[in-house]
């Protein structure tokens, strides 16, 4: 099939922005957590899947008569609680023991594997759709690019959550405490910040955002237990190329990655997306390891 040059570019841009918004949601939570604890929380992807499956359970498995927005809020809350639980049960005891980053990372990898398989046991490992009768459907067209309403919600959420986080970081006591822990946890504790409580909250918020990302993906393309792996890898890459631990960096990195992936497959098969993402990561690590936004 011949697709004329003029038609495909707007769609590629639209796809890049959509992908960027999804990756941004993952990267924002991931970076928030990384900023305070300084380790790669690989369970983040599985937490996103948990959020999506919580919504699936509410709308499909039990068919509860709740509004779709309420269901999503509950899903995000569930993801947040799971993230918080991981922090309390696994990461905090490890931090107390002064475990290295690698130990924390391997532990989170274990948590990731267990959560993912657990979802598969509860909901089967099949690919399932999340949309419901009360859901959002339809699409809009901008300069020849087709964007579904779900995808509009994705882009809006990405930007809105970024703005909210930026506001919290700048104008609230909590945000200041987080940035103090980012700089030096020991010193933060010395000046009277309850670091464990703050980190617990950070895990809850970061994981809830991941849950939102998982839910939105679910409405956009569908859900499967292994969806977390892809989300996690892309979110991680986005935060690293943007500048790991930095709020704006993760956001920017996500869109850079979205564009790189979608324009990268302009001439070749879409199956190469993941490989392109990692090539971008490795090039960035070699050339500019501190990310786009330097700390």
């Amino acid at each position, binding site marked *: 099939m011949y697709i004329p040059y003029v038609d495909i570019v707007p769609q590629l841009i639209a796809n890049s922005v959509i992908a960027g918004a999804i990756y941004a949601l993952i990267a924002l939570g991931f970076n928030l957590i990384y900023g305070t604890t300084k*380790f*790669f929380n690989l369970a983040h992807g599985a937490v996103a899947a948990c959020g999506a499956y919580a919504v699936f359970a509410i709308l499909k498995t039990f068919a509860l008569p709740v509004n779709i927005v309420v269901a999503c809020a509950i899903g995000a809350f569930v993801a947040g609680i799971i993230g918080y639980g991981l922090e309390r049960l*696994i990461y905090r*005891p*490890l931090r107390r023991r002064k*475990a*290295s*980053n*690698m*130990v*924390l*990372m*391997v*532990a989170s*990898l*274990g*948590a*990731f*594997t*267990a*959560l*993912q*398989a*657990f979802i*598969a*046991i509860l909901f089967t*490992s099949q690919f399932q759709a999340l949309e419901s009768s009360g859901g959002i459907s339809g699409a809009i067209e901008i300069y020849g690019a087709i964007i579904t309403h779900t995808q509009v919600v994705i882009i809006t959420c990405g930007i809105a959550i970024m703005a909210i986080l930026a506001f919290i970081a700048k104008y609230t006591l909590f945000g200041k405490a987080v940035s103090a822990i980012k700089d030096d946890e020991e010193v933060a504790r010395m000046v009277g910040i309850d670091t464990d409580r703050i980190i617990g909250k950070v895990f809850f918020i970061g994981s809830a955002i991941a849950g939102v990302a998982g839910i939105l993906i679910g409405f956009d393309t569908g859900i499967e237990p292994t969806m977390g*792996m892809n989300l996690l*890898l892309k979110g*991680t890459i986005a935060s*690293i190329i943007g500048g790991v631990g930095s709020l704006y960096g993760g956001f920017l990195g996500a869109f850079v990655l979205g564009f790189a992936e979608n324009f990268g497959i302009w001439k070749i*098969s879409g*199956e*190469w997306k*993941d*490989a392109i*993402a*990692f*090539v971008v*990561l*490795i090039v960035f*690590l*070699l050339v500019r390891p501190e990310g786009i936004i330097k700390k």
Partner: protein
Amino acid sequence: MEYLIHLAVMSSIYAILGMSLNLVVGYAGLLSVTHAAFYGIGAYAVGILTVSHGYGFFGATAIGMACAALAAWFIGIVSGRFKGDYYALVSFGFNIIVFSIFLNVQSVTRGPLGIPGIPKPEVFGMLIRSNAQFLLLAIAFTLATYAVSQWIVTSSFGRTLKGIREDEDALRVFGYDTARYKRIIFVIAAMLAAVGGSLFASYISYIDPSTFSLNESIFILSLVILGGLANVNGSVFGAIFFILLPEILRFVGFPPDIAAQMRQVAYGLILVLLMLYRPQGMFGEYKL
């Protein structure tokens, strides 16, 4: 009986993979999650060369080892610039890239269709027919890998590696080219993994990319950590344990499809518990 033999063959293949990865993770202290890529290179070399180019098993295995060595040398140059968790992340990336190649270069690998009909090896003019005979071959390869691994870790080369793991800067001060040591052990481990791959390909007689995904690398890493870092025997134990685990789960009464997922839950939880209570693994000598 036939089934026990099957489990034994799989255990020896994973023992080879575990022992070789342990050289990198346990002895050199590099958290590599790329092992399935080299495993796959070995498997694809045997699959492609024996099915469509008329090579014998051993010739194809040798070429597979050479390819894995070449890939590992290149990957080692790039990833050698990173440490700790960044190293792990970059190694994730290389696994995904190699996996994408298996999946997408369809003219060579047939992509998701996989390569069926891989012949059994021929030893001294005698074709291996039964699984029992194959088990002997697999055990021979496992023993060879065991001997190579033990030899490496007890040699001065192995002691230098342990030194690098404990304090790389100190070794560099003494004039050791530490990057070269790490690259060499990475290449050796990749070649041994390729052997595991060629055994797997000719044993199962069918390969497709899904066997060599990132999850497989994580699985191999888990068995190494369970068995114990920097302990060759530990990896053999880890391999046998993880191959038998689904059988135990099935014996306890889980249906087969849930047993497969339960295995994943189990090895995820085992990783978490080990990190919490015994970060060096069962018989390990080194903590991450």
